[in-house]
């Protein structure tokens, strides 16, 4: 079992986190400028979770996400220009501007979609895991969900079914302590690990701000799931830096909570580790600017995109087959 990560791996993890952070910061500015329609939920502060977990996945593995899904999408490798174009509501968007931030999906890379329904992605991931099992793809599925989603009944149903069927499924909880404007202790009375225990599902808790810790844990449990050991739980303690949505005045949250969150900056921790390993701050900076340039290019291209085609959308409610829409 791998117990540490190579310098190359750590750099790559850092890169993914920077990609997520800078993309979301860019989105935040675009939102402030009125360029982003609808709601925007940012995962700034939580980057280590998708970066660490998705690094442990293979191309054929699948992830189902939630409303705070940019990190999952980017870490799973969705096409960057299509990502921005979607959130900006353009025809060139991954979903042709029909879904937006809450529905970003790129099936080609196994990203089965962000989801507007809290808990909605859980059974979808379970079904995907079943497909992996039955088709013997060697792949596994990951369900990303927040601490707030733990209260939904589907979690229970999915833990049970995944356990009974020994599905290659990772329950990846991003526990940021908040469900919208309500703190975890008023939302959920159990520990996820204890629930897993009850269902015979092994679980690991990690510091979700430490990308190396997340990745090492993910490597272990992804390996177990892939080997046929059945479902696994990975709970990542993490911090939501921003409001529930962009524009949320966060009156319900005190300065200490916010400060505590900022104290555990996954990017800063990762940078510091890289520096300690002998990588110069300069090199890290150059490297970060490369990512920023990629983002800028993608945003620029996305902004030049067309308005989506209404007639094409209206004609695409059902799959078009040779025999016509109603195949």
């Amino acid at each position, binding site marked *: 079992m791998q117990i540490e990560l190579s310098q190359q791996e750590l750099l790559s993890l850092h890169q993914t986190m920077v990609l997520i952070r800078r993309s979301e910061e860019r989105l935040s500015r675009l939102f402030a400028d009125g360029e982003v329609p609808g709601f925007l939920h940012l995962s700034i502060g939580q980057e280590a979770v998708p970066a660490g977990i998705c690094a442990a996945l293979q191309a054929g593995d*699948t992830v*189902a996400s939630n409303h705070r899904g940019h990190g999952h999408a980017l870490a799973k490798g969705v096409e960057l220009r299509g990502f921005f174009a*979607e959130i900006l509501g353009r025809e060139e*968007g*991954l*979903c*042709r*501007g*029909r*879904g937006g931030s809450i*529905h970003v*999906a*790129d*099936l*080609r890379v196994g990203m*089965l*979609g962000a*989801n*507007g*329904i809290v808990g*909605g992605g*859980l*059974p*979808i*991931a*379970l*079904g*995907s*895991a*079943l*497909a*992996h099992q*039955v*088709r013997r793809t060697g792949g596994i*599925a990951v369900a990303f969900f927040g601490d707030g989603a733990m209260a939904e*009944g*589907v979690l229970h*149903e*999915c833990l*049970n*079914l995944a356990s*009974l*069927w020994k599905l290659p499924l990772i329950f990846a909880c991003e526990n940021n302590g908040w469900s919208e404007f309500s703190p975890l202790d008023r939302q959920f009375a159990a520990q996820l690990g204890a629930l897993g225990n009850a269902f015979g599902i092994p679980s690991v808790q990690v510091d979700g701000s430490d990308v190396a810790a997340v990745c090492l844990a993910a490597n272990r449990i992804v390996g177990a799931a892939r080997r046929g050991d059945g479902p696994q739980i990975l709970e990542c303690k993490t911090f939501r830096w921003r409001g529930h949505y962009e524009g949320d005045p966060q009156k319900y949250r005190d300065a200490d909570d916010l400060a505590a969150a900022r104290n555990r900056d996954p990017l800063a921790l990762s940078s510091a580790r890289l520096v300690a390993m002998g990588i110069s701050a300069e090199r890290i900076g150059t490297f970060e600017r490369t990512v920023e340039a990629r983002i800028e290019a993608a945003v620029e291209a996305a902004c030049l995109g067309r308005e989506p085609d209404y007639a094409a*959308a209206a004609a*695409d*409610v*059902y*799959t078009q*087959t040779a*025999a016509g829409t*109603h*195949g």
Partner: protein
Amino acid sequence: MAEIRYAMAINRALADAMLADASVILFGEDVAAPGGPFTVTRGLQAQFGAERVRDTPISEATITGAAVGTALGGLKPVVEIMFMDFITLAMDALVNQAAKAHFMFGGQCSVPMVVRTPHGGGLNAGPQHSQCLEAWFGHVPGLKVVVPSNPADAYGLLRAAITDPDPVIFVENKTLYSMKGELADAPQSVAIGRARIAQSGSDATIVVYGASVATALKAAISLAAEGIAAEVIDLRSIQPWDERAVLESVTKTRRLIVAHEAVTAFGVGAEIAARVSELAFGQLAAPVFRVGADFMPIPFARSLEREYLPGEADIAAAVRRSLNWKPNARTKP
């Protein structure tokens, strides 16, 4: 050609689909080892193995949501919701996920899944085991809704539903399970969206689906004795429904009755009546009349349920009412 029961026709369609396509899998409550509460899936686990035919716990939301993920994963799941009344527990997966994924993800994927579920009364199963809720799904873009009325259609439409790239709700009727009918030796798919003229006639059109087809045919017999030739159209699917076939018939008969077992108000008949009243306004010789259940939960006791369920006599009466309708007559509200 051989005679087969409706339940067995479904069973055979499932078996043939599984033989034809290794990606078809089945799961649901008590469908595998026990063979289903109405024996529809009997023998399939023995034939296709425990990997492809699975019993699930009592978890409708997850069964249906998992079907979405399974479909996205390259399989063709056919799941069962034991009574249509329990589909209330699976609405998120159907309405927010299955129906929308193709559209909402910009056409990247399809969700080839089928939900089989029986509706309807007649067994005194009471208010929570008898409802006909298909109208809800007609209102949801992205879903298809099929309601076969006989064994041959049950077979053919189920084959089509399983092949269909999009989510299909396949509604069976509990009282039809024992219905016998002919099935070809090498039966074919029946295209979703094409109605069938169950009986030709020139005096009035009766549009029906599912178990009401047989009821309408009986009504047509008694009407024939009075010299009234009713045309009975079996819709077969209600989303999409075959507007063209209905309009063609109404152009001929100038009178339309829509009948179903579901509650009349806000039911499938409302859409058909509204649409035909609009498109054939100039041609209709009488208002479109709807026959359906009274606006009440379906009651338990035998006498209550009998009175509640729309029957042959109600359909015949509506046809007569249509034929007797006088242009200047005011129908009382």
